[in-house]
């Protein structure tokens, strides 16, 4: 187990380096000069421009800039934005909201999705099954920004069930509830379908028949034996999805005016602020890799045949 984790952590390093380099190279290619408009309606004095370029390593070629950046990153230094604000401070401000939103979405997705999947998987072909299948198809095909707009209009503006927008950086649970439902809606549909297919397949298997024939109640045979085995692909999906939700929250964040990390990256790209973009995306990639490692470790709990020794 220990060696497995160490090996996986070591494998993360090339992926992390590759991903940061990719983002760094793309940000490097962004058109526009960071000095534009820095000194009002005139060009910056040469001395200031030289000092500025020196400070942000703007005169170095791409690989040198990148190595300097990674060197600082290894010390936990995310660098500064062109306005002289520490990127790490900004990330500390932005990430909690997005992580809270993403976690709520994942919890909603897991509970609702697995519940719907179990209810339909047990009675495949019934009325409820068809209803849920059609409902998931509808949810999957409506893009999230349409769902978000409609939910905001009907549930928040018209009927007043939820707050319309998030008004502060420290968003409450209630304020984030509707955005989290919107963000998780697509995944709920996928989780429900995945659980349903896997459960229906496992219910036909020999070990469930054995469990029933040796006198176990249906609840125990299905819940303990069939469901546990059916959950492996579902857990994989949910784990992968957490990373995707954090990165994909940008649309939901812009609809509900949430000051999260997606919004931050979007604004930084538009203002050509490289350090913020690379820093924020690096953290996203890191979260994604760590969550995937945790998911792989969870396999052992769900299916004792899988061991990491």
């Amino acid at each position, binding site marked *: 187990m220990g060696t497995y984790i160490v090996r996986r952590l070591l494998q993360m390093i090339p*992926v992390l380096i590759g991903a940061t380099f990719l983002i760094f190279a793309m*940000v490097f290619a962004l058109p526009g000069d960071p000095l534009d408009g820095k000194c009002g309606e005139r060009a910056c004095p040469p001395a200031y421009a030289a000092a500025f370029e020196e400070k942000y390593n703007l005169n170095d070629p791409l690989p040198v800039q990148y190595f300097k950046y990674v060197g600082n990153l290894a010390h936990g230094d995310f660098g500064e934005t062109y306005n002289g604000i520490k990127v790490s401070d900004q990330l500390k401000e932005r990430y909690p909201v997005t992580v809270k939103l993403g976690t709520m979405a994942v919890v909603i997705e897991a509970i609702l999705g697995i519940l719907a999947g179990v209810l339909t998987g047990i009675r495949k072909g019934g009325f409820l099954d068809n209803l849920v299948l059609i409902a998931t198809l509808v949810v999957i095909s409506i893009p999230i920004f349409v769902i978000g707009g409609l939910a905001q209009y009907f549930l928040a503006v018209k009927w007043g069930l939820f707050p319309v927008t998030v008004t502060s950086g420290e968003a409450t649970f209630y304020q984030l509830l509707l955005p989290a439902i919107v963000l998780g809606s697509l995944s709920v549909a996928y989780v429900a379908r995945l659980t349903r297919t896997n459960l229906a397949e496992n219910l036909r298997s020999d070990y469930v028949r054995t469990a029933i024939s040796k006198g176990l109640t249906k609840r125990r045979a299905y819940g303990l034996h069939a469901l546990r085995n059916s959950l492996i692909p579902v857990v994989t999906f949910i784990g992968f999805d957490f990373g995707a939700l954090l990165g994909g929250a940008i*649309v939901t964040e812009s609809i509900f005016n949430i000051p999260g990390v997606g919004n931050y990256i979007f604004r930084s790209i538009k203002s050509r602020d490289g350090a913020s973009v690379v820093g924020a995306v690096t953290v996203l990639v890191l979260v994604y890799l760590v969550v995937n490692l945790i998911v792989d470790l969870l396999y052992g709990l769900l299916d004792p045949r899988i061991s990491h020794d």
Partner: protein
Amino acid sequence: MTEQSIVEAPPTVDPHDAGEVGEERSLASDAWRAMRRNPLFWVSAVMIAVFVVMAAFPGLFTRTDPTVPVLAEARSRPGDGTWFGRDIQGYDIYARCIYGARASILVGLFTSIGTVLLGGTVGVIAGYVGGWVDSLLSRIGDVFFAIPLLLGAIIFLVSLPDFFNNNYLLIVLKVVLALVVLGWPSLARLMRSSVIQVKPNDYVQAARALGASPGRIIRSHVLPNALAPMIVVATINLGAYIAAEATLSFLGIGLQYPAISWGIDISSAIVGLRTTPHMLFFPGMFLSLAVLAFIMLGDAVRDALDPKSR
């Protein structure tokens, strides 16, 4: 291409259908037989056909020019002279919905072809050659896979040179490129795992023993038996890419005025949601129906190709 290469596969005989003797039975013809009986397939096929005709010949559906505004009638409701009403700029929403199909279908189709070609090739090489080549290609795939699709696409699109904004096809190609660059690893992983499953089979070993070249083994023995999962996922992804294009256009990064796209129209409609919801409803409906059609087709193809679900 895929149809033919599947037909060349060694025929798998289904014992349940032993009645029809003499007719050639292959995986593809079996799948086609199952698919023909599926109403889901026909519904989605008709919807896709309509959208493709709409994309190719929008003039068949409307004579109104979608780029001619009638400002005096801006924000008029459906039925006031036009079928779907007019938007903030006074454009005919019906005409814009029809003309918007082209961008979505083109982006979806090209992105799917691109990811299948790139991801499929990488997956086959990684799975068939194995060893350090596999490790290298898999790690490269991991790098692209770890970057969130939407954010990566936004950075990619912004960093592309202005050359790509010259004409309509280049703008479409720009969005396609961004989605292909970030979307290929999932198909490569899928292809790699199915090639690894097929490779140890006896008929592959036999072909190698008979002296067949690696190219021939891959072409006529490995590929036909490993393609099915990728076809299914690529079809479903086509719908997802259409949604992704609309999302990027919604954020103001993908297609831009004067290009016509459902995403752009939804984005400009969302500000007037409270007073003129019809401006959001119609492009949103067209977009959802297009995505739905491809997802249903993917479901039908999976049901036909996966013997376990039958």
